[in-house]
């Protein structure tokens, strides 16, 4: 039976997802020669938020209330699509890599609406920027997915993950997927989770009105989403080698990038996405050449 394995995999990923965030933060602090909070801090934060009373703006509607659940729900559903612990440990019927992109887009659609719902400029600004960035990321993500899937002849994650030989095209596409991951997880140089400065925040501005339990749900969803995207690279695009080691490598790369770079101006993101689009096209070209 594979099904209990898939559910077990989802539960493990959910359980460790805040830890990944905590470890990245710890690593960043170590590089910056700061002490910083412990690696379990994200768990404490979630526990604290869940206990706290929620403050909800009286101008909001049901869209605002529902959005965190939809975001968490789509991310959880997406967990069943990715065979993280080995090829085959996923629900085949749940969808393919293209469906994964669309499923996450559903959550983003609602959280962007929620950003507009309270009527503050911060929320609107965050939604506007989030949709701007995500619409530029989408073609890159899709093309990279195509490049990875071409060798397998199918967009099903199980088929892609069980390709025998490591293809050069997959390696290049993984590079593009890494930039996609930075954008989707609101990392420097595209966004910055650590700031609440109105000029620079994107995702944080969008969810500024949230507090208490709703905020906890959104935070948890973004921890899981991060693990999800790391897994797409580690288990689907490059399915060879040790999963945990690859996850650690990606996490270290993200941390190093975050401490060594500054956030880009919003309109420079266009250039970055253009660059990664070219990267994906190159991956397809390599795949067309048969490597």
């Amino acid at each position: 039976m594979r099904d209990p394995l898939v559910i077990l995999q989802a539960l493990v990923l959910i359980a460790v997802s805040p830890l990944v965030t905590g470890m990245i933060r710890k690593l960043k602090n170590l590089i910056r020669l700061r002490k910083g909070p412990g690696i379990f801090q994200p768990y404490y934060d979630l526990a604290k938020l869940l206990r706290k009373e929620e403050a909800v703006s009286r101008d909001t509607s049901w869209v605002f209330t529902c959005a965190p659940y939809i975001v968490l729900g789509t991310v959880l559903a997406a967990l069943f699509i990715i065979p993280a612990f080995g090829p085959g440990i996923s629900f085949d019927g749940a969808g393919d890599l293209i469906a994964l992109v669309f499923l996450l887009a559903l959550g983003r659609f609602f959280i962007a609406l929620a950003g507009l719902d309270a009527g503050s400029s911060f929320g609107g600004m965050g939604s506007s920027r989030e949709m701007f960035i995500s619409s530029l990321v989408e073609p890159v993500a899709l093309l990279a997915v195509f490049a990875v899937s071409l060798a397998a002849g199918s967009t099903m994650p199980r088929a892609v993950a069980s390709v025998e030989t490591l293809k050069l095209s997959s390696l290049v596409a993984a590079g593009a997927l890494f930039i996609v991951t930075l954008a989707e997880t609101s990392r420097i140089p595209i966004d910055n989770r650590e700031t609440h400065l109105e000029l620079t925040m994107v995702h944080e501005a969008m969810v500024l009105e949230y507090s208490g339990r709703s905020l906890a749900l959104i935070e948890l969803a973004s921890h899981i989403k991060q693990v999800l995207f790391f897994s797409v690279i580690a288990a689907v695009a490059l399915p060879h080698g040790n999963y945990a080691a690859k996850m650690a490598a990606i996490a270290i790369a993200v941390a190093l990038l975050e401490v060594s770079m500054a956030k880009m101006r919003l309109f420079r993101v266009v250039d970055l996405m253009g660059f990664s689009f070219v990267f994906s096209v190159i991956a397809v070209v390599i795949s067309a050449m048969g490597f």
Partner: protein
Amino acid sequence: MQLLGVDYTLLTDPLSLFFLFVVLLVSAPAAVYSVGYMRGEYGRGKKALLWALLAAFVLSMALVVTSGNALVFLVAWELMSLASYFLVVIDHRHERSVMAGTIYIVMTHIGTAVITAALLIMSNYAESFDIAAMKAASASIPANIKDLIFILFLIGFGTKAGIVPLHVWLPYAHPQAPSHISSIMSGVMIKTAVYGMLRFVFMTLGIGPQWWGNLVLLLALVSCLAGIMYALMEHDLKKLLAYSSVENMGIIMLGIGASMVFMKMGMPALAVMALCAGLFHLLNHAVFKGLLFLGAGAVYKATGTRNIEHLGGLIKRMPVTAAAFLAGSVAISGLPPFNGFVSEWLTLQAFFYGAANSGGSYKIFLCVCAALLALTGGLAAACFVKAFGITFLALPRSKAAQSAQEAPLSMKAPMAFLAATALALGLGAPFAVKYITGIAGFAIGAPAVDAPFSFLIKTNWIAAAVLVFAASCCYAARNRRAAECNTWDCGYYKLSPRNEYSATAFSKPLRIAFSFFLMPYSKTEKIRDSFYHVRSFKYEVFTTPVFRKYIYAPAVSLLFVGARKLKKIQPGSIHVYVAYIFVTIVLLVIFMGRF
């Protein structure tokens, strides 16, 4: 049935029946909706006229998609165009209506003329206007004439479909008609062009060389991207929807173009899959665009404005309309669990399998097509976050929006019906796809195939489960203690609607990113009391309509220059005219004598 040597027998093959179904699926709810919509809006005489025109419009569309004779087809086509023209100019006191109508009737007649030319050439070879006879004779048409016929069809049907750069009439004509008519025009009328392409190019003329498909793909891509970018910049709700129709016709055409390409590459199974994706998107777009136009009409009726910058907060005042419009927005953004997701997914799959099974530059071309379709999808989501968010969420931005009332039952019921249909088509996608595959196979003349459709059902059901989960969590938590507070205002005293983000601001990042195409410019107007104190400040942003400025405006001015030149032979003197008549008669006599 025969009269005047023309056979009036109607076609009842799967293709015709499918389009007939689409016509009725949108027209019937729109007709019900019009009962509530017209109340208080139009007088008795005008109501009667609207009903008559609506009936003529729907019947002529039904005739377009069922006629078995090219002559009958042309007459029905013209009837459809004229009926819709009168519907566009029904509010003829508005200057905008008259202008929209003029642009529409000129463009549509250029299209009709071109289609007529193509059909005449074909009937010349067949020596009949019967479509079956034309099909039989198409083998005898030389290749270069076939190319010409294809180009004529592409221009003619492309005009009706709103394919860029022939789309100029669409964003003027569609919004100007009464909303239930807009919904039929955008939902159904432009789809008759796809019917024409399938009936006359696929099934009568036969699919020609590879470049036909490539050309359709390129035009479709340009339509997708240009359509959605203009839609993003628009803050007239109905105009936004009209531009988004241009985009969606592009997506449908992507399926059709891919199908032509795969046919020529010897992959009939994939061709069927691509065409199935196109036809399914056609059906889906009919449903959700019909729904969105009805929703926009309800908003217009309740507030008297189509400018979303003056709206807001309607979700509390018009909950049913808001829910229906939200369903339409999710569907048109191609998100699960609604139907738009399935057809976009299918189109992407068709491109993927095409790329996987071809080599070299074609692999790259098809992948880039898919990526640009994904970009379109992302921009569409941004566009409809804006359309729904600014119109329905947060605080009302004007008195009219503040005092808006929910629409009557006769308007709510059709919207609810279409929203339910969009969801049903999403959840029941495998059944719909199976049925449409049969139609696509019939149109291509290839056997139906087993494409990897089987797992679709679950992605949609999973997304639906997520939405149900969210709704039930919210319901369960409805009594949870939550402090009601003001929106965070940085410590100032209470935000006003003027602090809200506007639609113009929302689309600003994209306006700047794509400024090479949109070429935005702004106008500011300051009224000062003194150097230090500005009493009022007005800021407006416009985008340059590239196609109108660089293609249509020069063409129109050329036309005027030509007309002015022609004026010289028309001096108004009766003697000159008598001389013209005399010369003409002499020439005719010589002409008659020679032959």
